[in-house]
């Protein structure tokens, strides 16, 4: 089985390399090496501890061709845009840069926002940065490095504060044969700089496809990066996304992963607090319905002393949907003064829904403050009773409580337009989800 799957991707790889003949030599080497890595690692199965609750059969059983650029109209894009966060926009369709849909106004000196394909040959020094941060030992990051076509490259120079959110949209569309696209984002925040980045993964049409993305974010000393990943893929999509955060001295990174739709989605967030006083906040929300499957795997690695990290992941699952959460906090020897919190709450709305969770602490030093909590259950009957006493009917009461449960994650988002847009979206979603209007 495994070898067959590798052969499949081998064909995909050959096709892709043919389509990209003029790449710089170092990139071809990087791709070859990554693909060798992928072949050696193979596709994980449920026998792998980190994949025990997510079955990749639908990927293993499909032949994928490299996705090609397709026509998407401004109107089709409109519903995925965010009000008040549309000044800078990079749009990629099926992993290829869509010039016409993107908006790149004159940007201040010291800030670079470009599709990766345009800077590969420039003096940006990408060959030393690409693929340096994300784990090369993970099969899908390796596969992404081998297969990626394009993605966003964002770099802020030292002491540069960019208040305007940068919206990166990765759109996938219907295709005749199942296609794989491999978007790649690289965000470099220089010392004492500030950046806001929104990544939207959106799907058009329901044909089966694979989106295998890698996002690398590096925050240099004292930098602040606010990152939100919005998942609005179609039900035919398998989304595998790896987000690598590298947080340096006294830097501050927040990353939200908002899972609204996808047939199958697996998000890996790997945060390395690489220097003293680094701080990160990782939050996530899953709203599952029908037969959707969401899997969030988080690793926070406290390497140096006095780091702080917090995690809040919440899932609301309805119908036959399933949510998986596995969060791990590692505190290395010598990382004293670490403060790490982790919280996972799950709300089951249907008896066919399923929740699997594994919050983990792995601690190798004594001077730490670490805690985690996990809950799973339904809405508190007393809270419903309280609201009903005040004149709300059952449906309204449930809607309101479910909304409040989910909103708890949203309210941590520090990019205002995104927060407002999501609050609006939640209101609409729960009205539909529970068959009433709030």
């Amino acid at each position, binding site marked *: 089985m495994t070898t067959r799957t590798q052969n499949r991707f081998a064909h995909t790889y050959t096709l892709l390399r043919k389509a990209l003949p003029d790449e710089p030599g170092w990139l071809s080497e990087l791709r070859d090496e990554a693909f060798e890595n992928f072949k050696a690692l193979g596709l994980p199965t449920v026998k792998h501890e980190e994949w025990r609750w997510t079955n990749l059969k639908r990927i293993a059983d499909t032949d994928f061709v490299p996705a090609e650029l397709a026509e998407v109209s401004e109107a089709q894009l409109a519903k995925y845009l965010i009000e008040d966060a549309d000044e800078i926009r990079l749009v990629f369709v099926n992993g290829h840069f869509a010039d016409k849909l993107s908006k790149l106004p004159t940007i201040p000196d010291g800030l670079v926002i470009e599709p990766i394909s345009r800077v590969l040959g420039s003096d940006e020094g990408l060959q030393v940065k690409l693929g340096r941060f994300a784990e090369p030992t993970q099969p899908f990051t390796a596969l992404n490095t081998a297969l990626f076509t394009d993605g966003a490259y964002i770099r802020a120079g030292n002491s540069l504060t960019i208040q305007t959110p940068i919206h990166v949209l990765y759109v996938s569309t219907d295709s005749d044969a199942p296609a794989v696209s491999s978007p790649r984002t690289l965000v470099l925040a220089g010392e004492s700089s500030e950046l806001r980045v929104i990544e939207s993964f959106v799907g058009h049409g329901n044909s089966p496809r694979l989106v295998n993305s890698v996002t690398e974010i590096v925050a240099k000393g004292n930098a602040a990066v606010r990152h939100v990943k919005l998942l609005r893929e179609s039900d035919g999509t398998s989304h595998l996304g790896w987000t690598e955060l590298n947080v340096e001295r006294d830097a501050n990174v927040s990353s939200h992963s908002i899972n609204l739709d996808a047939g199958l989605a697996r998000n890996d967030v790997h945060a390395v607090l690489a220097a003293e006083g680094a701080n990160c906040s990782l939050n996530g929300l899953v709203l599952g319905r029908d037969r959707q499957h969401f899997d969030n795997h988080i690793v926070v690695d406290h390497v140096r002393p006095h780091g702080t990290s917090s995690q809040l992941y919440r899932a609301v699952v309805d119908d036959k949907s399933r949510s998986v959460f596995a969060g791990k906090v590692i505190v290395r020897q010598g990382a004293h003064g670490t403060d790490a919190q982790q919280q996972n709450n799950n709300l089951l709305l249907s008896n066919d829904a399923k929740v699997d969770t594994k919050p983990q602490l792995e601690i190798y030093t004594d001077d730490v403050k670490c805690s985690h*909590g996990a809950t799973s259950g339904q809405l508190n009957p007393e809270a419903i009773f309280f609201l009903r006493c005040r004149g709300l009917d059952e449906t309204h009461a449930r809607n309101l409580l479910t909304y409040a449960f989910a909103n708890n994650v949203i309210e941590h988002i520090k990019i205002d337009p995104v927060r407002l847009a999501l609050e609006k979206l939640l209101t609409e979603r729960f009205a539909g989800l529970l068959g009433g209007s709030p």
Partner: protein
Amino acid sequence: MAETNETVQALAEAEYKHGWSSNVESDQLPPGLNEDIVRAISAKKNEPEWLTEWRLRAYRHWLTMPEPDWQKPKYPKIDYQNIIYYSAPKKKVSLESLDEVDPELLETFEKLGISLDEQKRLTGVAVDAVFDSVSVKTTFREELSKQGVIFCSFSEAVTDHPELVKKYLGSVVPYTDNYFATLNSAVFSDGSFCYIPPGVRCPMELSTYFRINTAGTGQFERTLLIADEGAYVSYLEGCTAPSRDENQLHAAVVELVALKGAHIKYSTVQNWYPGDKNGKGGVYNFVTKRGTAHENAKVSWTQVETGSAITWKYPSCVLKGDNSVGEFYSVALTRDHQMADTGTKMVHIGKNTKSTIVSKGISAGQGDQTYRGLVKILPKAEGARNYSVCDSLLIGGKCGAHTVPYIESSNKSAVIEHEASTSKISDDQIFFLRQRGLSEEDAVSMIVNGFCKDVLSELPMEFAVEAQKLLGLKLEGAVG
């Protein structure tokens, strides 16, 4: 105070109190494992044909299994051909009174603080003592039998109550269960058997003491405990072994069956030899313990794990019947190079099933421990409820504490809560106690005992005192 401290110091320096070995002559099979050895063990115990076959099935299945390696504590490969699978004190005839027990053996148990005789007269605890692989003495049998309670060694049960053994053996932990349980099923030599008839509240605590004596032996005992409808029993288990440089394997299986409305309380104080300061030697304690709770029944595990080089076990509850209850209370202490990977599994099958998990881990020196637990709610477990709390206390900058809870919920009405925390003993707490005249070690011991209180209070009285002392002893020299 000063004097006690000196005594404590002396004991701490002596390191392992039960490290001596006895010169009891033993009757043993050659080391190694093959079908002949399995048959030989079975023959030595005069076992019926079906049991020999059962062992052989287990052995053949074991050959097909890979040794698991997902656990956190890694250990050098065990050479299963180099273990003595059967060792028994010689001169074993059926014993009616204590006078007939080998005096050397009696002395052994005297040293352990379990004078069988004294135990019998003073504490009213019925004891089944298992020395190396066989049960040497069961006290209080007559009084128990008046109530219909059967408490005897496993091999006696096979002879005297084959119908019960045949019905329940492997019903909770099948011989195919896992690598070590399967190995145990093939080569188990003895253990305790207990049956409480319907509606009987066992009049006294039942207790088993395990001791590994002979070098190069593995201990593979099997405990089977059945509480019939509405019965109650409290069962204690204690373990020690001599200090030896090589690692000894202890792979036991404990099966509990709590029928409708029954209540089983199973307590363990595990103090196998932990190896020396540099991590040489010590017992590998790889045990499978599981209880099935039928309707309205309750299975409660309490464990104090202070010994063994590696402790790797997950006493579990299968909550099969409606309204059944499972409990797990655990204190695990690792110091020097000890490692522990322990926790529990609560499988909720019936409606309104409830489970509680309280786990306290203390890691000192270069000790490393992992709480690994599973709470699984099946789709039909309407109204299931779980509450788990796992706290870890770290003493020193080189130890490790890990928490890996698995929660799988397939029922929306189930409510599951899990919380865990990891911290060190705060300097403020120590300062407060030091101000009141306690030495630093006493202060730590007091804080640790407070930390473990929720679990220790679940132990039967005599054990709670012993466990508290044991914790204090184990912490000596680990602080500072």
